[in-house]
């Protein structure tokens, strides 16, 4: 069980995370949703200890240290691979550092995406680089797989197929925490929706509960975010009104 107790983070005078507490159990597929700058990336980096923060992150009751860090993997849109190295170089490096490295899964996913194995990653397209980032996160052998906007720049066919493959390969103990803006696309993938707004946790629901209550994931997000449906028409009215006045 991953537990976050009272996590806060400030960037200067800006509060990026405000006393976030959350528990994520094994096998959950958690969607982490929120607008740009809501604190999703900061939360993931705090879990991994990549940034200093207040509060406590524990995994099965133990603080996250080098002893248990390999139980986490991380796919980020910023990419955490070495651009001058090839996929195979990374495979060798991961295999030598992560005891649970899943070589079979790595090979299968590389084949699925049709990625070249002996080409410097800097020479791949942005979409292929994202795919590789995700492949390594899934192949590391981690129990908790954190993905931060992993599919920015990928076409919809790749994304949809990928979710299907992901659901097929994940083992019961593997947990996904996925931060994305593509809410509708992951509706059938995630089992739980966690919403974050201005650094605060503002929503946390099982998708099965949403289904039971007849609410869509997008509807839930909009409702929690107090989305104003007439926002666009009002803005257009204002804009076209201004044009007319001129």
């Amino acid at each position: 069980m991953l537990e976050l107790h009272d996590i806060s983070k400030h960037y200067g005078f800006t509060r990026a995370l405000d006393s976030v507490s959350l528990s994520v159990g094994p096998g959950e597929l958690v969607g982490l949703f929120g607008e740009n700058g809501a604190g999703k990336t900061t939360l993931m980096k705090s879990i991994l200890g990549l940034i200093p923060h207040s509060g406590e992150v524990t995994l099965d009751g133990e603080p996250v240290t080098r002893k248990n860090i390999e139980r986490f993997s991380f796919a980020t849109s910023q990419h955490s691979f070495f651009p001058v190295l090839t996929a195979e170089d990374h495979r060798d490096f991961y295999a030598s550092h992560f005891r649970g490295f899943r070589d079979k899964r790595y090979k299968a996913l590389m084949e699925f995406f049709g990625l070249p194995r002996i080409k410097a990653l800097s020479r791949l397209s942005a979409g292929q680089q994202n795919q590789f980032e995700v492949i390594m996160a899934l192949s590391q052998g981690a129990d908790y797989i954190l993905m931060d906007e992993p599919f920015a720049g990928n076409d919809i066919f790749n994304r949809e197929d990928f979710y299907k493959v992901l659901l097929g390969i994940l083992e019961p103990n593997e947990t996904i925490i996925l931060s994305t803006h593509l809410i509708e696309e992951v509706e059938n993938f995630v089992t739980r929706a966690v919403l974050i707004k201005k650094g605060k946790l503002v929503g946390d629901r099982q998708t099965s509960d949403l289904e039971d209550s007849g609410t869509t994931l997008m509807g839930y997000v909009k409702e929690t975010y107090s989305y104003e449906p007439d926002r666009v028409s009002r803005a257009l009215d204002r804009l076209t009104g201004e044009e007319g006045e001129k």
Partner: protein
Amino acid sequence: MKKPDLSKLVPLGAQPRKQLAAIFGAIIIAFIWSLRVPFTIVREYHRCTKDLKIGINAVMAGYSYLSADGLYGFYIVAGLMALLAVWNYASHFIGSRADYLMRRLPARLELHRRCLTLPFVGIALSLILSVVLDLAYRAIYTSLLNKLSLI
């Protein structure tokens, strides 16, 4: 004989032989620069013997004056090694955030080992050589000073 695997001593993707060549090249340049110290000492000795032979009272200048900046090259190399270490760390931020991967490794010292080993070797070699050469040049100076006192 099997060649040692130096690739584990530099950041992933960096070329260890290039870094080693740069370190040894810089040390060799610093050594060549330092050779001006014994040359200056010997020249000073010859000037003094020449003066003494024609009856002019002559005293050899002090070692610190003669050695002047002769060993500075090694200190500059040590400074450059510190920059190499900074570069090694910075290379993890170029084109990606590979530092995220390195900081997630179970091996706590992996990142630091790859970034600091060769710069540290460079600094150690530079400082050791500067001390050894300083002692050697001082020995040359002292022996010539003693020789001069016998004239």
